[in-house]
């Protein structure tokens, strides 16, 4: 295919050898990553775009309504988990055999429904909008957190389970039951059969009035589909599927040098993908580089705060770099918004690891002033002691 147009001759991009080779390596890596989506078929397709539109509304300061996406459905394949990442860093992970529908997508509220299967949401908080997830007779109002909703389908097992990994959610019954706040590590179980529960369905339709929720401090149960939120490769995956989805293969396609070149020229979205490739491939140093570039080169991007926080976490937990962690966490806190509480608590730990007592005490005082009864308050109070 060639063009001989006079106009086209004057509209050509600058193509250096480095740029072309980065594109080459990137195409191989992206092909490996995308193979999972290809296997999921067209299920996501337009529905994913609609869900993306709904989540665009919840990702940023709302200005308009997006009614047309209501009714959109996203499904994962029978043995195929699916993960969507949105511009503010919010992640929606569908376990295998999950059906998620968009009930409402308005400027100040987005309502999703888990029809069956399990969904893990890692939501960036936004005070301008409310995100509600419903399942069976239960609705979960998201405060800004990571949590999982599982709709069971086997006889004798709980029908709806909500498990909070980080932050907090408010859980209530759709037919007017009491509201309960769940914190990290707590779970909530509604034993009622999902089949008899639908929006607006009450006792008149033959449903049993909702029992009080059952908060539990037990560890959150795993999704019935068995997929780990952090690992898109199901343990039950066959060799072919594992190979195609293996982020190590995607990283190998780039190579260390190719990865560095890709990071140097990547867009904000691609940097986030590169971070995920490296992280899932067990390359935290390279993952940190991608995050560092994202926050520095795209400071106005909605993911920059999340990148700074995640960079701090990586440096602290995996790279043994408390000084770097403190710098990134301070940066995340200056940006405000997402993960403020976690970043504040981690900052205390970072200064403590550095032996910086003044910094530790200042960070501790800041945390306790902002989150006196926060999830980490007890641990933070114990820090900075001689």
């Amino acid at each position: 295919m060639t063009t001989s147009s006079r106009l086209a001759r004057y509209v050509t991009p600058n193509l250096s050898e480095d740029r072309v080779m980065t594109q080459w390596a990137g195409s191989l890596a992206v092909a490996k990553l995308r193979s999972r989506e290809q296997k999921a078929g067209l299920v996501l397709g337009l529905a994913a775009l609609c869900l993306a539109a709904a989540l665009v509304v919840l990702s940023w300061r709302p200005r308009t309504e997006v009614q047309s996406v209501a009714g959109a459905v996203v499904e994962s394949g029978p043995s195929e988990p699916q993960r969507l990442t949105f511009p503010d860093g919010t992640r929606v992970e569908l376990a295998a055999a999950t059906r998620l529908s968009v009930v409402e997508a308005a400027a100040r509220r987005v309502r999703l429904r888990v029809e069956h299967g399990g969904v893990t949401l890692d939501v960036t908080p936004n005070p301008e909008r409310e995100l509600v997830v419903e399942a069976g007779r239960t609705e979960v109002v998201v405060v800004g957190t990571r949590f999982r909703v599982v709709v069971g389908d086997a006889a004798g097992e709980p029908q709806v389970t909500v498990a909070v990994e980080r932050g907090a959610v408010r859980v209530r019954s759709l037919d007017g039951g009491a509201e309960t706040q769940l914190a990290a590590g707590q779970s909530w179980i509604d034993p009622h059969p999902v089949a008899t529960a639908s929006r607006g369905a009450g006792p008149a339709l033959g449903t049993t009035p909702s029992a009080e929720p059952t908060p539990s401090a037990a560890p959150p149960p795993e999704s019935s589909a068995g997929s780990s939120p952090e690992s898109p490769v199901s343990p039950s995956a066959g060799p072919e599927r594992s190979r195609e989805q293996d982020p190590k293969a995607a990283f190998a396609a780039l190579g260390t040098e190719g990865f560095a070149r890709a990071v140097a020229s990547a867009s904000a979205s691609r940097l986030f993908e590169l971070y995920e490739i490296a992280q899932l491939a067990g390359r935290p140093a390279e993952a940190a580089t991608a995050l560092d570039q994202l926050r520095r080169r795209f400071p106005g991007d909605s993911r920059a705060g999340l990148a700074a926080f995640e960079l701090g976490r990586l440096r602290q937990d995996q790279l043994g770099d408390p000084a770097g962690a403190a710098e990134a966490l301070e940066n995340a806190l200056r940006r405000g918004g997402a993960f403020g509480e976690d970043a504040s608590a981690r900052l205390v730990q970072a200064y403590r690891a550095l032996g910086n007592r003044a910094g530790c005490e200042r960070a501790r005082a800041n945390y306790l002033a902002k989150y006196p009864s926060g999830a980490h308050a007890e641990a933070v109070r114990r820090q900075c002691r001689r």
Partner: protein
Amino acid sequence: MAIPVVQTRSGAGPSDAALVVAARARERWAQEALFRRHAAMVNGLAFRLVGRDADLDDLVQDCFAEAWRSLGRLKEPAAFSSWLGAIVVRTAHKLIRRRRLLARLGFCAQCAIDLDELVSPTAPADVRAELASIYGVVETWPAGIRLAFLLRRVEGLDLEEVATLTGTSVATVKRRIADGERRILAATRGTKEPS
């Protein structure tokens, strides 16, 4: 990354068809040779369709990634170039739709086309003026009209080629190009464009 020498006695190298067959057999050198051969075409076409350098690398990577994944479904290996061109058009279509969605929601402040970045400084004044009249308005157009119009007016393709690349009929292509012409005219006269 070493590039293997892929040359025949004539100096032209293997045909696209031969490279496609080898690439299907997971020969990495053949894949890379195809990439090398068509990278300039894909970059140029993608750049002119989306109008922004910032989107180019992601778009080109996505196009080739799609090509590698679906190479097995290419019925005529000799037609690799046109087939790849159609992938570029489809991928650009998705990107443009996404940008329009973001723009409608008010979240695409950086989506505008920068004519200085787009058009070569060596372009004659009349070419620059024509490109300005086109790229100054296409960002707000529906993706189908924009792509058909740019493929015809900027790429200089004939109607059948545009129809093949966009996966539509010649009649649809004609209608979309005419719609684009009306929009350009309306913009030139300062009247409201059709929505």
